[in-house]
């Protein structure tokens, strides 16, 4: 295990270095092959480690790579922690990454920056694995920053487009604001527990008073909202759709945005100490899920719908975390990775077939042209809508059942959101694949073509996973479920046990009803029309004017401040001080220069006067 675990982490880095050093001499195909295979091998190593972990009694293995920081009382090793939580994350991160790498070899074919793309993707996988496998907060932070940077690079991949460049900046800046939270949490924890390693923190939680614990939890929540795109830092995610579709699938659906949830789950022993912190988390999760769902119902761009859908689903995960149902949150995370990646890659296939068109009003009736994309997308649609027996039904149901046990209001909100989810996804499906052909002018009267194998094969795999994903955590399988596997890593499990089967079945029926209502509503409205119906308010389409609000409250005042600083402070204060100093030196020099008139007699007079002064002084002293 101690040799295998570092391999998981190091392989993507090796791929990155290989492509970096040799990139120009390798053909595109070879670059794609190297990049994909290192991640695939990393996945294999993860599977092997998983198997080994199952046989390990303690279910917790720390592999020390090297001593990184060792100063006074601060000891931060570069070490890997293999426990159920991290190995689960590793498995689905490397698995989905491999599929997306494979997909990208076909999707990004013909791009001039092909090599750069795979460089960034490999580096991203490496950073994400660092984040997940680290055994201390500092190394996690390194990975955290790493994924932020790679996200920035990949979102602004088409950097000559103004919108892409600013989207990248926006993503990075929002992430950074969230990072303050993580730093504050680290500082607080270190001050009180004198350690930053997870296991040591968890064993010294008694040193944290409830206030401190709440502060730490809120700080971690801030970090999570930044990385996982929750309120109030969520509006970077829709803009991040400027990046290529595989990027959206990998980073903004399956991996990076789950990092926030991972962090909260990892720190669950600390969360256990603060009920107000957990309540805040739950409220934010629930509200975000609802708000994002309403926005998604009004979007015209296919990727934006999926982006807001991601925000909404992660809202569910955060809600589950807030309520204490960590197992449910993880289950939803894993199944969401499957079906959201499937949906994104499917939409990528659609976009690819239409030559780059992303506006749903210009799609339609693509079902007969895309014989492989269509059924896989159908499966994805049904999964996310929560239709049994697909994975979405089980995972979302798990979350809602747990929420019901703690907070009925949030549960109701969750159910409404589920209706909206089914609604907007059906709207997307209908507009894209059914209805009338509206794409002829975009494709210049050509027929759309199905995507190559490298793109459709991952779709098929993901579709299969979406179908079977429910098996991970069936409510009645207590021995072999994901929650059971993960239980040792959680600090506190919500008191769920007392729910009767009848109640659970009732809740499950409510979920199904929600899905069905949403589906039918969408079908009936969108079958015949393309333009927005009258009840749809532009408020939703404009993201509840969130961006505008930030601009007015923060953006413009800061810009004004910068302008004032430039005009006043820069020009009048700093420049004046520097130039004033230089000027005064110059002027004094010019003044003193006048003493040198070139007249010998004047110099002689000066000498005599000097002697006079000396003599007077001596007389004064002696006489």
């Amino acid at each position: 295990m101690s040799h295998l675990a570092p391999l998981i982490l190091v392989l993507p880095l090796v791929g990155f270095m290989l492509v970096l050093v040799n990139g120009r001499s390798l053909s595109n195909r070879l670059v794609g092959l190297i990049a994909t295979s290192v991640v695939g091998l990393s996945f294999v190593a993860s599977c092997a480690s998983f198997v080994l972990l199952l046989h390990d009694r303690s279910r917790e293995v720390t592999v020390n790579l090297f001593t990184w920081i060792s100063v006074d009382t601060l000891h931060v090793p570069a070490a890997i922690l293999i426990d159920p939580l991290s190995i689960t994350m590793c498995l689905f991160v490397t698995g989905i990454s491999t599929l997306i790498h494979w997909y990208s070899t076909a999707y990004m074919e013909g791009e001039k920056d092909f090599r750069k793309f795979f460089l960034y993707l490999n580096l991203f996988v490496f950073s994400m694995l660092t984040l997940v496998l680290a055994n201390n907060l500092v190394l996690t932070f390194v990975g955290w920053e790493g994924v932020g940077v790679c996200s920035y690079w990949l979102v602004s991949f088409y950097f000559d487009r103004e919108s892409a460049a600013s989207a990248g900046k926006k993503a990075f800046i929002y992430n950074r604001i969230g990072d303050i939270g993580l730093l504050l949490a680290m500082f607080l924890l270190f001050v009180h527990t004198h350690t930053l390693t997870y296991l040591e923190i968890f064993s010294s939680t008694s040193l944290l008073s409830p206030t401190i614990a709440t502060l730490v939890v809120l700080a971690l929540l801030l970090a999570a909202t930044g990385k996982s795109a929750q309120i109030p830092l969520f509006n970077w995610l829709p803009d991040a759709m400027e990046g290529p579709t595989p990027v959206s699938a990998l980073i903004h659906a399956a991996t990076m945005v789950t990092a926030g949830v991972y962090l909260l789950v990892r720190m669950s022993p600390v969360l256990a100490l603060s009920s107000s912190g957990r309540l805040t988390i739950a409220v934010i999760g629930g509200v975000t899920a609802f708000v994002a769902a309403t926005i998604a119902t009004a979007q015209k761009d296919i990727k934006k719908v999926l982006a807001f859908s991601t925000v909404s689903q992660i809202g569910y995960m955060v809600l589950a975390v807030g309520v204490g149902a960590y197992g449910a949150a993880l289950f939803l995370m894993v199944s969401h990775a499957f079906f959201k990646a499937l949906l994104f890659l499917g939409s990528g296939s659609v976009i690819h077939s239409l030559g780059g068109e992303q506006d749903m009003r210009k799609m339609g009736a693509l079902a007969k042209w895309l014989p492989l994309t269509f059924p896989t997308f159908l499966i994805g649609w049904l999964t996310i809508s929560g239709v049994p027996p697909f994975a979405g039904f089980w995972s979302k149901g798990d979350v809602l059942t747990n929420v019901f046990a703690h907070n009925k209001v949030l549960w109701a909100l969750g159910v409404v959101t589920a209706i909206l989810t089914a609604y907007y996804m059906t709207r997307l499906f209908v507009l894209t694949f059914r209805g009338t052909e509206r794409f002829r002018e975009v494709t210049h009267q050509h027929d759309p073509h199905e995507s190559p194998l490298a793109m459709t094969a991952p779709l098929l795999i993901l579709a299969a996973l979406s179908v079977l994903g429910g098996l991970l955590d069936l409510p009645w399988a207590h021995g072999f479920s994901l929650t059971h596997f993960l239980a040792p890593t959680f600090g506190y499990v919500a008191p769920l046990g007392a729910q009767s089967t009848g109640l659970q079945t009732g809740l499950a029926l409510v979920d199904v009803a929600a899905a069905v209502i949403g589906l039918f509503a969408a079908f009936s409205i969108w079958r015949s029309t393309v333009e927005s119906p009258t009840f749809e308010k532009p408020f939703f389409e404009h993201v509840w004017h969130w961006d505008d609000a930030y601009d007015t409250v923060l953006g413009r005042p800061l810009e004004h401040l910068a302008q004032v600083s430039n005009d006043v402070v820069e020009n009048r204060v700093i420049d004046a001080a520097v130039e004033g100093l230089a000027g005064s030196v110059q002027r004094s020099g010019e003044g003193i220069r006048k003493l040198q008139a070139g007249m010998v007699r004047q110099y002689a007079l000066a000498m005599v006067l000097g002697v006079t002064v000396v003599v007077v002084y001596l007389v004064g002293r002696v006489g």
Partner: protein
Amino acid sequence: MFATAYAIPDVLVFAAAALCILGGALGVIAMKNPVHSALSLILCLLGVAVAFLEQNADFLAAVEVIVYAGAIVVLFLFVIMFLGVDTSKHPHVEPLVGQRWLAALGVVVTVAGVITLMVNSHWVSGVMSTSTGGTALATGADNVTQLGDSVFTTYLLAFEATAGLLIIAVVGAVLLARRERTADVDEIEVTDIEIEVGEDEGQWWIINQESSEEVES
């Protein structure tokens, strides 16, 4: 009268010497004609020589007259004649503002201060002699011997150095006073000159010039 404390001839000699010195000095600075100034300088130097004599510095008195009055001032006169220096035309005009007043002030204060200091320290410089150990200064021919002994034994290095200095001075003087050789210029046969009139302020310059003979410089 203090004549009872001091010998009258000594006082008279001192008075004469002092008169010559101060008179000559004032003459040097006051005369408009440089030749008159030089002659006043001679008067002053003669007074100094007498003062030397009075203090048993016989050899030095002689040297003063021979070298200072006889050579240096003569040199001054040579140069005055050589350059044809005229009587200064505007002696009363002082172009530098306040020069005279400040000079007078400075000099007066300095001299007064020095005298005050000397009074306070009882006319002794504070440096006690180590070489003669209190023996009286010799007079007459013995003064020469004593001085000669001092120069050629105690201060031999300085003596040799001044010898070198004199040679340097002579060489320097010769070099400085040399007239530059004027160039023998052959005729330049100019075949082609293009003159272009520049546009800035009427300048002109030679663009192309060919000459058949070189200029010796």
